[in-house]
């Protein structure tokens, strides 16, 4: 769904640890709760794919911080005259002797030149992280591979461990993948089963011809399998939603059967049916056009539909006449008279008005996340953790740099712009900072400080050689910082090398987001934004190809129906207006729009059938049964919790209901007797 640069950055953002973070919180802030958390922690970290995320205890990072202590922290002095060695040592001496509390001398920096007033941003209690007022928190990293199987495995293993404990909350974005995937699969299974059941019953009841029914079943299954083989050949990662749609489309291919059968093409071998052929060709062409849209799901569905319809058409038109199918009278209601009739032009006027007004009132939904299953339980859990961690409103941003040092400098720029942001790499030392601090250190004249200490310490009362190693060269002049990727990763920081750019991430506050994104070295990492951009591009394509399809349909309709064009055209206008009317109340997403075009492509079939000079009772029946089967085939999708499937279903229901309305209530241009039957 993402292309080019957007896709590249999305893939990179997926590599960062904030995506693989796994949080576990235990309710309660008493010691027994901490004990419970430790137990859980031990069990979880025993799993090879779960690592305790412990930045604080990262040995290499702590050693780095200690090595560059004089460079990373603020200093309490700027010049040498500000330091009165003897006075300071006296104060310290007094403090040590008389203080109630234990006074700890730092051997490296006894005079406290380094300002160690660090305001801890991390909330600790009893040495452990806490989650607001809720309880104790442990942070882990899930290091499993990103394919579905690995994710499901680790999800199950975590569930095994956590189900033994009460009052524990756990969350990771990986849960979304697993739970949503499970939900989608179970939904899909349910839908396909219901669909097959409903359609099966429908066909049996309507046709009352068992032999025909079995043949239909075989044909439809064959068409589905064939379609699947072709699609999975071109798209190794076929969406399961394509499978659902494709099963539903068989309820359209059945139309070809209905028309042949009810007009006795099977038992009387009447040759080639032109109307069905025109309908078939227009539908196929429409889908061919739609398949050009650069959106994998739409491509998959279109190609599947084309293959499936072709197979079904070939079967129903050319093979079935030779199967020796007997004609049995299908179910029909005799002498049905519609309660009221609406004149054709009224419908067209109504539709046109609705369509024009819709241009102002219709709403669109560009958020791709809304197409997915809305896992309310996980979304609430995610919100709970985020709000307690004050990460609630922070937005992910990628920072790039041509060298690691540039990356660190860039990170510091971001941190300076947004003080509340979490910018991991900003806590490292850049080369520029090193040089700047070196000058200050030279100004402090540590050679003099050391001599002063040597002279004063015994006078004040300290042991003779105690301070001999204080302010030594290793402490004052650590090596010039030259980082490698391994070093940074060793400190527990996220760093990715892509092409010739180093990339890391930061979490920034929303009000500073635009300012930060305006910098030349930042890029949005929010998948929502990346997807939105990509989706907007697709919408334009959708409108283009959809428009072309529409043009094609209208021209074919005009050619075929000639004088009765307007009546046939209402079969396109009216359903379209109904779908747009729906868009006044519910924002239309990409699936609504796509299905809208599909309805039009199907609707044209009916427009063509309705055009037949002698509109027999059987034709009407065929159309009604086709509609009912399409209604059942797609309508069953509205039971799904997955928004994309629901959207397809509701659009189909609205469209088909519209066509059905026209069929039953629209006044025919030529007066036909419903009673006339052709045997």
């Amino acid at each position, binding site marked *: 769904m993402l292309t080019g640069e957007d896709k590249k950055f999305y893939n990179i953002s997926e590599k960062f640890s904030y995506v693989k973070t796994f949080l576990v919180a235990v309710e309660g802030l008493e010691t027994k709760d901490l004990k419970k958390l*430790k137990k859980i922690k031990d069990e979880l970290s025993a799993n090879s794919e779960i690592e305790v995320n412990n930045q604080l205890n990262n040995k290499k990072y702590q050693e780095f911080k200690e090595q560059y202590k004089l460079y990373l922290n603020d200093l309490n002095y700027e010049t040498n005259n500000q330091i009165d060695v003897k006075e300071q040592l006296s104060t310290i001496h007094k403090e040590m002797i008389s203080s*109630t*509390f234990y006074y700890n*001398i730092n051997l490296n920096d006894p005079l406290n030149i380094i300002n160690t007033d660090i305001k801890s941003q991390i909330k600790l209690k009893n*040495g452990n992280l806490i989650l607001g007022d809720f309880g104790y928190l442990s942070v882990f990293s899930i290091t499993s591979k990103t394919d579905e199987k690995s994710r499901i495995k680790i999800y199950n293993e975590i569930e095994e461990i956590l189900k033994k404990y009460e009052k524990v909350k756990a969350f990771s974005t990986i849960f979304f993948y697993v739970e949503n995937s499970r939900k989608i699969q179970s939904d899909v299974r349910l839908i396909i089963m219901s669909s097959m059941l409903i359609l099966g019953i429908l066909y049996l009841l309507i046709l009352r011809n068992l032999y025909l029914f079995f043949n239909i079943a075989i044909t439809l299954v064959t068409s589905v399998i064939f379609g699947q083989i072709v699609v999975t050949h071109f798209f190794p990662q076929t969406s399961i939603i394509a499978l659902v749609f494709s099963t539903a489309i068989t309820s359209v291919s059945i139309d070809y059967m209905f028309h042949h059968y009810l007009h006795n093409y099977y038992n009387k071998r009447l040759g080639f049916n032109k109307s069905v052929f025109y309908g078939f060709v227009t539908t196929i062409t429409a889908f061919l056009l739609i398949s050009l849209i650069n959106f994998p799901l739409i491509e998959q569905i279109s190609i599947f539909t084309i293959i499936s319809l072709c197979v079904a058409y070939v079967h129903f038109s050319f093979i079935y006449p030779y199967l020796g199918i007997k004609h049995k009278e299908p179910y029909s209601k005799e002498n049905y008279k519609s309660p009221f009739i609406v004149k054709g032009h009224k419908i067209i006027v109504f539709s046109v008005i609705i369509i024009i007004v819709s241009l102002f009132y219709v709403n669109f939904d560009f958020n791709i996340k809304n197409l997915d299953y809305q896992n309310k339980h996980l979304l609430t859990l995610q919100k709970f953790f985020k709000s307690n961690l004050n990460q609630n409103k922070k937005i992910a941003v990628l920072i790039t740099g041509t060298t690691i040092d540039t990356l660190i400098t860039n990170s510091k720029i971001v941190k300076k712009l947004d003080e509340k942001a979490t910018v991991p790499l900003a806590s490292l030392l850049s080369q520029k900072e090193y040089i700047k601090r070196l000058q200050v250190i030279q100004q402090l004249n540590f050679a003099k400080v050391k001599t002063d200490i040597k002279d004063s310490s015994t006078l004040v009362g300290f042991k003779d050689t105690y301070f001999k190693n204080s302010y030594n060269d290793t402490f004052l002049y650590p090596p010039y910082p030259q980082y490698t990727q391994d070093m940074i990763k060793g400190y527990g920081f996220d760093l990715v090398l892509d092409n010739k750019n180093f990339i890391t991430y930061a979490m920034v506050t929303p009000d500073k987001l635009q300012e930060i994104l305006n910098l030349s070295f930042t890029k949005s990492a929010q998948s929502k934004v990346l997807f939105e951009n990509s989706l907007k591009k697709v919408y334009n394509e959708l409108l283009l190809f959809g428009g072309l399809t529409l043009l094609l349909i209208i021209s074919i309709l005009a050619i075929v129906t000639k004088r009765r064009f307007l009546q046939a055209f209402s079969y396109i206008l009216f359903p379209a207006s109904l779908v747009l009317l729906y868009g006044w109340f519910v924002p239309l997403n990409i699936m609504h729009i796509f299905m809208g075009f599909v309805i039009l492509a199907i609707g044209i079939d009916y427009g063509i059938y309705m055009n037949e000079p002698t509109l027999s009772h059987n034709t009407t029946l065929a159309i009604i049964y086709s509609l009912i089967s399409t209604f059942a085939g797609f309508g069953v999708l509205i039971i799904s919790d997955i928004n994309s499937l629901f959207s397809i279903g509701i659009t189909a229901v609205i469209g088909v209901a519209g066509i059905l309305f026209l069929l039953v209530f629209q006044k025919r241009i030529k007066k036909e007797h419903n009673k006339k039957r052709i045997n």
Partner: protein
Amino acid sequence: MRFIILLIFLYLSMFADMNFKETRYMAALDFEKSKYGNLHMDNENLIINYTKPIQETISYYNDKITVLAKDKLDEYSFQEHPNAQYLGLILKAILNNNYATVDELFEIKKEKQEIQLKAKPIIYSYIESINIIKHKKSIKNIIIYMTNKDKITIETIN
């Protein structure tokens, strides 16, 4: 009646004072200082009362320390003085015999009558290691080795 006395005994024993002698060796001054006092747990708070040579009280709460000496009360919050909380945590853990709270700070090694706590990177620059020597079930000695060569020894007296 006997039951109530037993209960009172149990109640009192929970808050039993632990009498100790604290010896601080300050390497910088090459000087040893001893204090006497008692400590006990009050809910989740640790109260250390020094009786000799001067009367002083240090109280470790969940988020701060208070020091009461010569009728003056000072407060130090952990946000501003993170190192201050460590000693309190350690003592509490030792008293409760529950080392879960110091799991982040030390590697814990338990032997028969001795427990060794080795510092993890987060407190490397402050404490090196701690030895806890027990006699049967009660604590006999706690020896804290600081990184700057200082040593604090706490011996229980009964």
